[in-house]
């Protein structure tokens, strides 16, 4: 599975993409992230998209092999 970090989250993660072994749920995913990055992505302002679809509730995450999870901080506009 692949993690994609947008905007300033990419700076925090040190990369715009990260590969992780699947399967992972939300708490399992947070456990693999650096504390500062984990704290940032837990924030209400950060949305996540799973395979291009926005997830209403992060706790519902169920990532399997091949899943792409994008972390989306507030947009700065065009």
């Amino acid at each position, binding site marked *: 599975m692949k993690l994609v970090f*947008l905007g300033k989250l*990419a*700076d925090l993660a040190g990369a715009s993409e990260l590969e992780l072994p699947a399967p992972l749920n939300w708490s399992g995913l947070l456990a693999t992230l650096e504390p500062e990055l984990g704290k940032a992505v837990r924030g209400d302002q950060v949305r996540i998209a799973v395979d291009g679809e926005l997830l209403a509730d992060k706790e519902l995450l169920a990532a399997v092999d091949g899943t792409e999870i*994008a972390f*989306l901080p507030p*947009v*700065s*506009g065009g």
Partner: protein
Amino acid sequence: MDKDVRLLTEPFAPGAFVGPFTDAHPGLGGVCTFVGEVRSGDGVEALELSHYAPLTLAGMDQLADAALERFELMGILILHRVGLMHPGEPIVCVSACARHRRAAIQAVDFAMDHLKSNAWFWKREKRADGWHWIEPRVEDHADLARWAE
């Protein structure tokens, strides 16, 4: 009704798109075009817009549909740059053509307010001391609220 929505990765000349777009709608009463450019003089040396492919273009496409549904248009064109840009380069171009002017003018205003506050773009600026991420602006959200139904 017709829409043309694109993400562009290279510098573009708005006229090269607006000309053919206008020509494709014979019988129009008016065409309104807005072009946004990277401002110069604010100490900004470069601007970088990043996007997330699965969401950004789809969101722009939905915005075009919303404008077509809301205003009496013959067509709408939405172009947006991504990548690295310099002062003076176009970032965005929205053009709408209609039988009557007000629909075209309002559709462009509507699309721009949504692009500025609601589209999936992340922006950073390069200044003398390095790169800085741009946070959302309160004014942009106030602009968006004008269109709430």
